[in-house]
């Protein structure tokens, strides 16, 4: 461990722990959470690690409180994170919206388990992907990442912090019980080798006409925080560039929502990350993410051994959706196969982008386990017949 309490080197590490360490490397110094399987290890690790790196850990009374404490900490100028699973994710939705509306950088990790309701507390699920997209009320755009391994959970947690500062918005890390509880090799590079995006700060001193929601050219406003003398007012109501409520008609709602959406949509090429495999000759494309994508690797190999030209598009960024890539592929492939541990969520998006040009075969799973190779293989075979 370095003087600053940072780990560097190669470790045999659980996914949840890697997530916590990624956050620490990214500069997270505030964690508020509420215990829930399979995300608890993140909280436990943060309880141990935050004091070592000069940060704060607090176990709140529920997930509503956790989400709000994280927003408050971010407005005090500290990078902040919370981690939960389905039931807690549901409780966080209203205040995720507050984070989006007030443009508060922070990271929310969902280690997904089987649902609905209490469902399968210890077992895997991917049933919260659409909730991640639309779970809070109102029109908005969101960023969500989906790792397939502990190493990627580490890397993407750092990326999530960077994106949240770059775009001034909460970013979701949508992992799952398999990745969170899996133990594998995780390499933590020295801090100097990690790209860390700092917060965009006001360029005028207090009293010089700073407006909290006056955006830069890229639609992201520089952020002053509490206690600096800027005397900011921040509200979840529809507001103008001064941050003042404007709720008598839709005149402020239009520019605000357009900006909140466009600051992400117009830069989606910068955000969207995918992994492609055998797409050059593919006639069938498996589109998947997280642990489901990893589980689909073996049936994909089996299918290729049978002579089926199948490739994979693994969504590392799930939201914003890689719609252009799928539209392109839909022009030339025979079919898509979408294995996911839910009853069809991302498959709907693939279908939307394929727009009838290629059929989409969902390989559903209700949660509780990953797909069996033969389930995915059967779908690939069906897709080429």
């Amino acid at each position, binding site marked *: 461990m370095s003087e600053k309490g940072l780990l560097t080197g190669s470790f045999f590490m659980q996914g949840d722990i890697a997530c916590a360490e990624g956050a620490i490397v990214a500069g997270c110094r505030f964690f508020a959470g509420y215990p829930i399987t399979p995300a608890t290890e993140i909280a436990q690790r943060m309880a141990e690690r935050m004091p070592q790196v000069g940060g704060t850990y607090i176990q709140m009374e529920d997930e509503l409180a956790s989400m709000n404490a994280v927003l408050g900490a971010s407005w005090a*100028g500290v990078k902040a994170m919370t981690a939960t699973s389905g039931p807690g994710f549901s409780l966080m939705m209203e*205040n995720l919206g507050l984070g989006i509306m007030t443009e508060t950088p922070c990271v929310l990790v969902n280690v997904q388990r089987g649902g609905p309701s209490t469902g399968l507390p210890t077992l895997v699920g991917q049933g919260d992907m659409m909730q991640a997209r639309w779970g809070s009320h109102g029109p908005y755009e969101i960023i969500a990442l989906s790792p397939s391994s502990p190493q990627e959970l580490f890397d993407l947690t750092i990326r999530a912090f960077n994106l949240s500062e770059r775009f001034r918005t909460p970013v979701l890390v949508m992992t799952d019980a398999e990745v969170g509880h899996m133990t594998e090799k995780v390499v933590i590079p020295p801090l100097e080798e990690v790209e860390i995006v700092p917060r965009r700060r006001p360029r005028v001193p207090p009293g010089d006409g700073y407006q909290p929601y006056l955006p830069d050219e890229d639609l992201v406003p520089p952020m002053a925080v509490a*206690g600096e003398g800027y005397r900011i*007012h921040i509200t979840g109501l529809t507001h103008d560039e001064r941050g003042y409520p404007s709720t008598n008609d839709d005149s402020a709602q239009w520019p605000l929502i357009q900006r909140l959406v466009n600051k992400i949509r117009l830069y989606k090429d910068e955000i969207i990350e995918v992994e492609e495999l055998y797409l050059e000759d593919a006639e069938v494309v498996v589109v998947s993410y997280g642990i489901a994508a990893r589980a689909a690797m073996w049936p994909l190999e089996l299918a290729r051994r049978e002579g089926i030209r199948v490739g994979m598009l693994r969504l590392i960024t799930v939201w914003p959706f890689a719609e252009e890539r799928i539209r392109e592929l839909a022009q030339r492939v025979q079919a898509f196969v979408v294995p996911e541990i839910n009853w069809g969520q991302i498959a709907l998006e693939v279908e939307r982008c394929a727009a009838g040009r290629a059929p989409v075969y969902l390989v559903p799973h209700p949660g509780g386990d990953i797909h069996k190779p033969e389930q995915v293989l059967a779908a690939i075979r069906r897709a080429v017949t």
Partner: protein
Amino acid sequence: MSELTGHMEVNSVEPGAVSPERHPMDALLREERLPHIWCSGCGIGTALTCFISALLKSGLDLDKVVVVSGIGCTGRVAGYVQLDSFHTTHGRAIPFATGLKLANPELKVVVFSGDGDLVTIGGNHFIHAARRNIDMTVICVNNFNYGMTGGQHGATTPVGSITTTTPYGNYEHPFNLPYLAVASGAVYVARWTVLHVRRLERAIGEALAKRGFSFVEVISPCPTNFGRRHKQRTGLDTLKYYHEKGVIRHGADPKSVDIELGGEIVEGKFIDIEKPTFLDCQVTAR
């Protein structure tokens, strides 16, 4: 602001801050946002006036004072103060404020919100912040109902009250807020009606000076939604009612300060103790 503003005495504003054109409190109000949304006769403006004058006298570095509100008529306070201020979601001002305070202990964090916000939907956060003794001042404007949404009952509505959701009279037992705060761990607890502006201002000043979870309950008229259903058509009628029913009993057993319809309203400072805060304890644990 309410009809009481004229009676206020603001005698310790910095020299030079008072000019004939400017109200002494303008420095702490966002003038460009006035007029405010509150009804005439509403008590929230008086509570705000007392807060601002307490703040001006407190000697606190105003750049470090942060006001956090939830949602409701009282929740709009955050939007009018010329301070760093956050208007959060319904019930969640306290956890938001907790994050602010713990992430930057230099901040003086004040939560200013309504009864429905702080102790009904947000009741869980209230008791836990008090239990942890988070260093913050919570000012709760208790008008016994949900003013903003049209006068529904909440956790402080006295038994028998007619509200838009208790058309036959409220039959739920209400919270006694000082008792709740003390039992949960608050280190300073006081209650005043908005009639007692000097005492209210002093109590807020004491609460601001206190380290730990300090709580001031402000009993306040809502003529529009509560008063007029209880023979108090105007804010002034309610102030007269406070004059009649208010009794000052410092140090009263918080258990004994329940508010009943038509009964006495016990006011005063009920507790003022020292106890290590969350941050103190956290440092010791390390």
